[in-house]
């Protein structure tokens, strides 16, 4: 085991391999507040990558309703129970990571889903956390709530799947930090499916190997966002590159959201993998639940997001989500316009800070017809 720096924990931690950050790290920001669980992302992924035999049950991308939704069954609950209660001390994680809590004989603390655990991909869908009581009123956080959590592989800086594989069949690409299973080397031991806490590695019984989200690397190599990003009709996702916090650049949209504004947070940072998909937390869910999912900074992130209407830069950057299939490594605000840029500051896309609004008359005098049914 080596000692490595995990900035999400605010401390060093033990990992199976020495720290070896890639030249660039694939990262993403998902705005949970915009997701409507239409599953277009899920279908885009499914039809592109996992329409083969033995892949039927695989969802490299899925959207689950929290608190009760989960795929595979109780993936998060089982792991949290296995790890036990842990704590943060301010910005520093005082508990044990999955690597530090690994029992004798194991590289990672984990569990392996059974076939039954994969049998209910839409369990808990749209289920509220509780019932609406008499006298309830609408407030924030909501008394009764749920939200949609879209999940792909986190292409972690310290992948548990990679650490768990005794054959070194899983690797992290130096050029973009994408984590892949070497399909020529995997022997189907399924240590990765046990080790990955997010359960984003799947065993294909008809190839005898494990398969996982590849972040659509053939598209990334062409400067394009993955299928689940490009097809997201809610425009909740943005692909990009994340820097370590000490090298954060405000002109990098991911750095800006994660490191500068701290409005996007990793999922279960306490597990110790330094996941690279970041979530803008839902504003309407209780802090206690969100803190467990996104760490101690979640309340501050919600406050920042709620104040975005008065923050032209933040509001503007959020409006760039889903505006182009191209990856935008840089951005800027140009007055009332937000511009997505290449690394060479060449313009990719330009969107207005505020969408122009046209108020149509309820009754169209010219054609003598009602344009809305509720004047």
């Amino acid at each position: 085991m080596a000692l490595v720096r995990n900035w999400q924990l605010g401390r060093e931690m033990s990992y199976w391999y020495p720290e070896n950050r890639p030249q660039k790290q694939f990262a993403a920001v998902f705005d949970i507040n915009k997701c409507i669980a239409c599953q277009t992302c899920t279908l885009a992924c499914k039809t592109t990558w996992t329409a083969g035999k033995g892949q039927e049950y695989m969802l490299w991308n899925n959207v689950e309703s929290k608190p009760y939704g989960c795929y595979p069954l109780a993936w998060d609950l089982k792991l949290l129970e296995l790890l036990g209660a842990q704590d943060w001390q301010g910005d520093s994680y005082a508990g044990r990571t999955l690597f530090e809590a690994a029992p004798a004989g194991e590289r990672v603390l984990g569990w392996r889903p059974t076939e039954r655990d994969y049998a209910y991909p839409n369990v808990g869908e749209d289920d509220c956390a509780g019932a609406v009581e008499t006298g309830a009123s609408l407030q924030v956080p909501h008394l009764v709530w749920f939200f949609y959590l879209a999940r792909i592989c986190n292409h972690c800086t310290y992948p548990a799947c990679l650490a768990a594989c005794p054959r070194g069949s899983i690797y992290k690409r130096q050029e973009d930090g994408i984590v892949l299973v070497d399909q020529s080397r995997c022997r189907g031991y399924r240590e990765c499916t046990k080790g990955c806490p997010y359960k984003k590695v799947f065993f294909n019984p008809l190839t005898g190997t494990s398969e996982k989200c590849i972040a659509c690397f053939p598209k990334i190599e062409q400067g394009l966002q993955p299928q689940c990003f490009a097809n997201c009709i809610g425009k909740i996702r943005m692909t990009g590159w994340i820097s370590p916090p000490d090298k954060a650049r405000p002109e990098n949209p991911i750095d800006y959201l994660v490191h500068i504004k701290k409005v996007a947070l990793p999922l279960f940072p306490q597990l110790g993998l330094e996941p690279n998909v970041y979530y803008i937390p839902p504003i309407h869910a209780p802090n206690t639940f969100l803190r467990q999912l996104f760490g101690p900074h979640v309340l501050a992130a919600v406050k920042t997001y709620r104040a975005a209407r008065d923050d032209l830069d933040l509001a503007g950057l959020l409006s760039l989500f889903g505006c182009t299939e191209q990856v935008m490594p840089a951005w800027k605000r140009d007055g009332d316009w937000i511009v997505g840029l290449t690394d060479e500051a060449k313009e990719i896309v330009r969107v207005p800070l505020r969408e122009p609004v046209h108020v149509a008359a309820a009754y169209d005098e010219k054609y003598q017809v009602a344009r809305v049914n509720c004047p």
Partner: protein
Amino acid sequence: MLSSRCFTYLALLGVVAAGCQRPAPPALPTTVQLVAAASLPAEPDDPAWERAPEFVAALIPQDLVDPRLMQATTAALRVRALTDGKRAAFRLEWADASEDNGAGPNTFSDGCAVQLPAKAEPTLPAPQMGEPGRAVHITFWNAAWQEAAAGHRDSLPDLYPRATVDHYPFESAALKQGSPEQRAMADRYAPARRLGNFMHRPPGAPVQDLVAEGPGTLRSLPETTATGTGKRIADGWSVAIVRDLPEGFASAPEGQIAFAVWEGAQGEVGSRKMRTGWVTMTRVEQP
């Protein structure tokens, strides 16, 4: 007088009783005895195996390299061995109450393996999968591969009888089934197969010839020349493996061999296995 007669009777009874004692059983072989044979049996229930004495190998958990097997499972392996001078046949039998030959997300297969030094040399490679520059050759038998090779558990309905699938792109009516275009498209959704990594059903199934130079370095040889067959017996599995003898073994006074067993029901796979260290293997003309 009476007492001396009684003594005589007692002495005679003692002599008779001593004569009735069972002869001491022959000592169990302490090595794997490789018995010369004109031809090698391919099936584990072939009567030819009776010519070879049975060696009982005590198994220990693989607890040196993570991930480890922390609790002992299969206690022992019964081994018989025959050779025709170029190839060797091994029959491995062990107790296993459950027949595990499926392949699901959390379903593991029973299996066994024989390991030989790649070359017969005075000093041995590490028994734990060899070491860099000093390879070991392994022949691995897998119950799930045997099922797949027999045509079982080889399709979605075999694995999940209640599953239905709307559409596979490579089975579209627009594609002629079996055409190069159709096969290429199907392979796009099975990258391991496209890369020649047939872990569901290797070409030599149900066995695979492998080479390793230390833990985590196992790789399949370009071609599997070994054969294998497993059958269920009263207490578990009986598996016959026929493979080449290692280079130089014909002129060496004796060789070494190691064994491993995987109990699928216990989730044993890869390095989670019961194993032996090196066991001496001697060649004998007659048992």
